[in-house]
């Protein structure tokens, strides 16, 4: 769960909300769904809460591979 990409978590969350809103789930299923949904939402929010800007430069080496370095601003 903690490694899930934002897009995946968001899509899963959207699907869960729609399933819950369709209203034809048993209580147990909807509780399971709900629990999953809360986890996905938490993952999304965790990713959204990152506010630290990370600045790097992409450098191309002689052999054509890439390196990443800090940008001196």
């Amino acid at each position, binding site marked *: 769960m903690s490694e899930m990409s934002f897009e995946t978590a968001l899509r899963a969350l959207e699907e869960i909300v729609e399933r819950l809103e369709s209203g034809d789930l048993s209580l147990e299923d909807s509780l399971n769904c*709900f629990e999953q949904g809360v986890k996905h939402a938490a993952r999304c929010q965790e990713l959204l809460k*990152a*506010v630290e800007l*990370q600045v790097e430069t992409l450098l*191309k080496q002689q052999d054509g591979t890439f390196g*990443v370095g800090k940008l001196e601003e």
Partner: protein
Amino acid sequence: MKFPDGAGALSVSRLVGLIKDVVEENFMQVLILGEIANFSAPASGHFYLSLKDDNAQLRAVMFRTQNRLLRFRPENGMQVLCAGRVSLYSQRGELQVVVDHMEPQGQGALQVAFEQLKARLAAEGLFDAARKRPLPTFPRTIGVVTSATGAAIHDILQVLRRRGAGVRVLLRPVRVQGDGAALEIAEAIADLNLHGQADVLIVGRGGGSTEDLWAFNEEPVARAVYASRIPVISAVGHEVDVSISDLVADLRAPTPSAAAEMVAKGREELERHVDHLLLRLTGPMQSRLVVLRERLNGLRRRLRSPQERLRQGGRQLVDLQRRLQSAMAQRQRQAGNRLGLACGRLDALSPLATLQRGYAIVFDAQGQSVIRDAAQLTPGQQVRIRLPRGRFCSRVEAVQPLEDGPLDCPSPTAQVPGSAKSLD
């Protein structure tokens, strides 16, 4: 006129050589104004054309090394000002202008080049609206192709910091102006695609002259933007500047700052979207739980525990015991009363009670039978008398069998002493 003999005649080569010297020495630097005709650009890379006006025309060539620097592509009918020299092409004996530089007349070269490339790329479909992709919903890594020292990267970082967008900016530094800048930019776009970590690219630079912004109007950049698998935001110069890369890109931002705003805005919208989803997730769940809790409470109220029933049974038992006891006590009392009553009535029937009222019972001498009729008696007969208290023996003095009639009782003085003897 006598035709001279061959002595002193010039060979063709010699003449051409002489003319060549004259021409080339006198027209080393010329400016020619004319219209392009018969333009051709074979595989060698050299341009061959004619320059003409209403009355004359002249062959011209523009060699690869020079025409590579042209920003526009010469076309037939185009009025141009050419700088170059006049040369004689010895093998053919033809005069030609060797063009070093060419400028379109009327519009500037850059404008012409821009319009030409625009028309060509439009025809190829590079600007088609249908192929423009939306920006990713959640860009986490933003590839930036611009100068490491220019205003663009500074503005982009400032906006992203101000908006608190916690993204990773991956700058691929390039020269954004001067010779070779377009190729560097194109390569950088390709590199970011190869590297594959950026979710969106911002390609651009801050404001400058048309000349400064030119690299973004060049075909290699347009091709690289078109080929990018990663969506591209083009942000070149100021609001008013529209570049070819703007037209090819998925999204055009008026400035680099605006491009950063677009990226950050997407994030904010996303935060709201997630908040909204969370509300939609918890709201109905909570109300469903409230309803269920109500039902549960209702059922719990209706569900009596066996303990309660036991307590109730216990209370019932105690009650019944009490009722049993009191009923028993009552029955006992009633029985007691009846016994008393019966005893009373028995008492009333008892001869002893009658005796109490002053009666006595007369038995025969044996005490076997009760004498009820005086006729049973004879004078001198011994009888036994029962009194309420005590008994005695007596002797019959006289008998009067009838109810009324005189009874001759002897006087008390005639009583024989000792006649009343103890019965025991």
